């Protein structure tokens, strides 16, 4: 479940995001490859009785394309490999990879393809797209905030909530919330 990054950069670039964008406007447009270094995809699921259950995906890939003239035409594609899930507890990782949750053997990829990017502020945008996991696809929304733009590198902080039950991953509810909170840092490098 992941989000994609936003085409935030686009608005950053196009819109008058002052410090960051002004200078970089002409540079921001283009295609970025999400770099594993400087990027992370973390998630939290609330637990009954308090506390949460934290995890992260170690392997993923994707691209961010910033449209020079129209933020709304920016694109984000993200592919996550659920096999790489990690929680710090091996037995839980194994459970998550199994057909109880991700069924990583039969569904090795979780994909997000953006369908629209809507600017919501100077450095923020909502990215809507189609999330596919375990063979099921639903529209999802993520919020992206431009976190840095320097040289050929762009960085977004992306958050969003996904209901796991829709993807056939409802195991453990209500002990574990149906809502998965994503928290991602996505760093893209141009080229």
């Amino acid at each position, binding site marked *: 479940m992941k989000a994609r990054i936003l085409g935030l950069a686009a608005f950053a670039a196009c819109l008058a995001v002052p410090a960051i964008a002004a200078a970089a406007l002409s540079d921001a447009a283009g295609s970025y490859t999400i770099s594993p270094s400087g990027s992370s995809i973390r998630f939290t699921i609330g637990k*009954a009785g308090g506390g949460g259950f934290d995890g992260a995906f170690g392997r993923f890939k994707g691209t961010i394309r910033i449209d020079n003239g129209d933020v709304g035409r920016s694109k984000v594609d993200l592919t996550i490999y659920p096999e790489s899930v990690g929680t710090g507890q091996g037995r839980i990782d194994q459970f998550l990879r199994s057909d109880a*949750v991700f069924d990583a053997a039969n569904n090795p990829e979780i994909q997000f393809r953006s369908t629209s990017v809507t600017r919501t502020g100077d450095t923020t945008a909502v990215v809507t797209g189609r999330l596919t996991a375990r063979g099921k696809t639903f529209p999802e929304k993520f919020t992206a905030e431009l976190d840095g733009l320097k040289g050929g590198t762009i960085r977004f902080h992306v958050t969003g909530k996904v209901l796991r039950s829709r993807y056939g991953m409802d195991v453990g509810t209500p002990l574990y919330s149906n809502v998965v909170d994503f928290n991602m840092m996505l760093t893209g490098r141009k080229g």
Partner: protein
Amino acid sequence: MQASITNTSTRYGWAMIILHWLIGIIFIGQFVLGFVMVRIESQRTSFELIQLHKSFGFLLLGLIILRIAWRLGNVAPPLPASVGTLERRTAPLVHLALYAFQVALPLSGWALVSVSTLEIPTMPFDLFVMPNLPLTESDAAESFWASAHWYLAYAGITLVALHAAAALRHHFLLRDNVLARMITPSSGGE
């Protein structure tokens, strides 16, 4: 004749009879469920069966507390005069052991989930969150309580089997009313 809720000097009341059979059936069901849930291939089904096992475990604990309170507040009908000295002495010990296992088994399961490093919450029948016992979680403690729970389960089911065999012996060989009185309640007339 009306069935009495309380025991009398010769028979069990229906409260004790219902608690006895309900606990007995759930106890045996829990043994089977516990055996299956850790051997089943599907991790999802295994997870769900384990949560069900925890739910029934807490139900058992509640029923057992009720049963012990009821037992302490009621006379227990004595064994028939035909019962020999050896059995007269050992039967109460076996019954005491059965009660001890009824308490120890759910408690050991509760300890197990409390110390497990998986930190899976417990919600009996999805109704409410059952807090953990105040024990320190660790892999070592988890494996200790898993073993304790496992050994207690096997010892407990062995005692249940002995108990059932003894009841059948009374009914079919000795032909006394020891089993019958755990089926037919005392009546108001007695």
